[in-house]
């Protein structure tokens, strides 16, 4: 028997199947443990999904803010969760959707990176995406299902965009258009900002490559660009029409709510740790390489610039860039998603660096890179435990049971000191609340007039939050607000002086129920914001339909242009010195 043993390092890419197996090994156990349920927003998405389970074609949800429209948030991830929930239950359906998004991310990163770097470097980039700190941070700590679903779809659309612009391939045009639309149905902001950070570098890349191989004339390039922008723009306008209508009729004019991702990470190092160190992890070490290589290789410069702008915006208030570039949107958006996008844009560089290090240092590099990747991933996953969204874990089942019995749900309720458990409670109870966790969906003037977030966490928003709470309690009769569930005695003096009385307690007296006498039963409010039936039908059909269409069109066979492209040098001219190249 012969044994073939190569002493040369392999130049082959890591098989995609192996990368997907890495996703399974790393993330599946964590998701089966339902780790994301401890994150900030996972329960929020599950709450939205729970509404779609029973009201697929009626986006008006009366359980928060005395009624709000779910057309204010793109529904794709939540609708898939709702669809899978009869089989898996809501929690595991959420995990399944999230898991699919992570799998798609690995594929998307590989395909996106292939536009910039070699297949081998792209495969390293895809493998790095499995351990990406920002991804784990968003999945396990932030719980941003929308962002983490939209980004992989968007990344998978970009190679088709390149194909269309570069080769005029109509199949690519179709696939790119449908995938972009599906990405928008998952998260609108990803598409909006992704266009600048991801798509513009692709346009620049096509422009730079236009003379190579199959030549692209400038007019053709312009026509193709305009055509896809128009088609995708129209498709998104139609698919998310109820969203745009809600946005135009009821723009987000409420007082900005402070968010620590807008802090200066040097003046507030605790937030720097949270929003920079944890999401970037070992990528921080690669930053000099990204700048040097991205600058040295002309073809990589558009990607570098895209990364740089996203990186600066993602630094929040550490630089004035985010404030200047985003304007008022800076006060509405949270910045961690920009860091996420920056890290995705950095992955082709990381793949390049990893392949070069492995080629050069072999086992040593593999060990080092593995440790760095594992550390980045582990830190971000563990961060949810070190700095949990809720310091105290407690069960809201008893609260839901109390609300659901003896007609208590005829009145509205509000919780104080429940943190992000309000979404979990809303899933379990039939009662309606004047509070909620979706700030852009709220319309009650008592809430929008003040720069406080959820009433349940009023005290953390200082005077603004407490003023909102006072005003809401003051208008309790108007909203049929009779019950206040208090898990933080901080609020007791206010309730006592405002004429509320403790009437019951739950969970070993850790939750006190306060009541106000003479409050009339709750009646529907916010009627003008209620979407008409046709919008409900659109909302139930088009966003979800776009994802089904995307699955179908992706199955259409595709000629792989980029694999047949001539070999491009990804190594800087400056580095072509003896002994520095991988042999």
């Amino acid at each position, binding site marked *: 028997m012969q044994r073939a043993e190569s002493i040369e390092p392999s130049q082959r890419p890591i098989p995609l199947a192996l990368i997907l197996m890495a996703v399974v090994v790393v993330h599946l156990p964590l998701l089966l443990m339902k780790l994301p349920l401890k994150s900030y927003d996972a329960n929020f998405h599950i709450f939205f999904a729970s509404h779609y389970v029973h009201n697929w074609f009626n986006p008006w949800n009366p359980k928060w803010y005395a009624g709000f429209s779910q057309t204010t948030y793109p529904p794709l991830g939540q609708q898939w969760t709702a669809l899978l929930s009869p089989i898996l239950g809501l929690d595991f359906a959420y995990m399944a959707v999230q898991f699919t998004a992570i799998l798609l991310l690995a594929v998307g990163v590989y395909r996106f990176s292939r536009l910039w770097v070699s297949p081998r470097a792209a495969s390293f980039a895809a493998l790095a995406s499995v351990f990406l700190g920002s991804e784990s941070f968003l999945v396990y700590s932030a719980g941003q299902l929308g962002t983490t679903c939209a980004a992989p779809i968007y990344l998978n659309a970009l190679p088709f965009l390149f194909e269309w612009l570069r080769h005029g391939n109509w199949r690519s045009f179709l696939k790119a258009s449908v995938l972009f639309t599906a990405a928008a149905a998952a998260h609108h902001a990803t598409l909006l900002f992704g266009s600048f950070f991801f798509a513009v570098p692709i346009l620049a890349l096509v422009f730079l490559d236009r003379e190579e191989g199959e030549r692209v004339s400038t007019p053709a390039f312009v026509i193709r660009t305009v055509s896809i922008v128009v088609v995708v723009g129209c498709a998104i306008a139609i698919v998310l029409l109820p969203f745009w209508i809600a946005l135009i009729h009821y723009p987000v004019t409420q007082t900005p709510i402070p968010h620590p991702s*807008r802090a200066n990470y040097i*003046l507030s190092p605790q937030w720097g740790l949270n929003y920079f160190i944890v999401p970037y992890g070992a990528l921080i070490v690669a930053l000099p390489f990204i700048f040097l290589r991205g600058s*040295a290789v002309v073809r990589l410069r558009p990607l570098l610039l895209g990364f740089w702008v996203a990186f600066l915006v993602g630094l929040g*208030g*550490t630089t*004035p860039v985010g404030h200047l570039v985003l304007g008022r949107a800076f006060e509405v958006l949270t910045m961690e998603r920009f860091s996420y996008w920056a890290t995705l844009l950095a992955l082709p560089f990381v793949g390049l660096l990893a392949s070069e290090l492995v080629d050069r240092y072999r086992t040593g590099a593999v060990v080092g890179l593995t440790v760095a990747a594992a550390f980045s991933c582990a830190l971000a996953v563990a961060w949810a435990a070190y700095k949990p969204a809720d310091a105290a874990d407690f069960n809201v089942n008893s609260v839901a049971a109390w609300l659901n019995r003896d007609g208590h749900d005829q009145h509205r309720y509000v919780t104080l000191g429940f943190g992000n458990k309000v979404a979990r409670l809303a899933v379990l109870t039939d009662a309606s609340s004047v509070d909620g966790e979706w700030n852009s969906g709220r319309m009650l003037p008592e809430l929008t007039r003040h720069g406080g977030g959820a009433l349940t966490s009023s005290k953390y928003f200082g005077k603004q939050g407490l003023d909102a709470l006072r005003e809401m*309690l003051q208008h309790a009769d108007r909203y049929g607000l009779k019950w206040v569930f208090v898990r933080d005695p901080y609020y007791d003096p206010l309730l006592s002086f405002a004429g509320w009385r403790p009437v019951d307690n739950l969970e070993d007296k850790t939750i006190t129920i306060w009541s106000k006498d003479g409050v009339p039963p709750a009646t529907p409010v916010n009627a003008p914001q209620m979407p008409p039936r046709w919008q409900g039908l659109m909302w139930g059909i088009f966003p979800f339909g776009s994802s089904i269409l995307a699955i179908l069109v992706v199955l259409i066979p595709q000629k792989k242009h980029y694999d047949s492209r001539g070999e491009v040098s990804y190594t800087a001219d400056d580095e072509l010195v003896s002994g520095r190249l991988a042999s």
Partner: protein
Amino acid sequence: MSKGLLLAVSLGAATVALVAMGTMWPIPAAAAYAGGGSLLRSSSTPEAAVQNLGDEIRMNAWQKAYDSLANKAQFTEPQFVHDLTGTYPSLRTYATLENFDVQPLHASTDEAEMRMNLHWSSVVGAFTSTRDVHVVRNGDRWEAEWPIEKEPVLPPQVIPVNYLRWDVIYRGAGDDWGAQDVEAPHVRIVDMHPVQRAEGVVILGELLNEDVVPAYVSVTATLQSKSGATIETEGSFDRISHILLPKQVTPFFINFPDRTLSEVGSVRMTPLSQLVPASADPVIEIQDERLNPAPDASLTGQLSNQSGQVVNVAHVLATFYDKNGQVVWVADQYIDRALLPQTPVPFSIHIPEDLARKVSTERTVTSSYSSGGTQ
């Protein structure tokens, strides 16, 4: 230098420059999280020293704040913290310093006098406390001398309490229709007076519990137009004493922002009374009440807790009458310090300048909150 390297250096330098800009001159959102300051402020002036002290208090950096004081040898760090947050749980304990301002009162080359107005945010509303801080030069730095106010500590003792308490047994859910229930307490609005103010229409009045049992009370007012249509309904919220013992009177104040009296045809008052369990303790004496004339017209006095129970939060409601005995204004104040037994705590309630001249007499009532029980 190659073009690539030049670009890399330019981007790197721009990044560093932008980070430096963002740190030296943080945007408002970032400054709020950083305690309002930047890295570069040193205590090189009396104002800067007091500003730094305020920032440290705002961020609850007690040790840093204490270490920066010139007179820290006169008291311990816990005493300093208790001065700001209270020894016993009180409004201060749960208040956060929202912002502060510093006014120079006097300055020389080696010392200065600064006034710190500390604007606190608490669960029952905002309040301001003022401290005059002496600042002294120490080399090239200035250091603040904190005007410590040591809160009295109760000596260990036993206080016998013999208080009255009412408990209520309500009718059961299974009782027949027509079965007798306990009667709601009889209350009566003894005075009601709508007033036009710059901020809107205000309904002032007084409510009496004329029953022999305690009452939970609240008052709702509905403004009706001349055609009888409802304009708006508002309640007294916390500007009323919600628990009234037998024969007790409370003022009430109902605010209708942005409304004018000219659009109002009538006002419908709806008092609500409910029989609730209650306690007659604690009894709070209001001492040395004085009406101080304009300018800065105010009602000042002291609250003295006559009971053995610590009152964590006290609320003072004052009714002001003209010489004919008509109610002209109702004002209130929450006391930010706990009321310890037999330990007077001052209060000061502002009276609007335009009404101060009309005020002839006043009547003050208190309500209180004690953790574990309310009245």
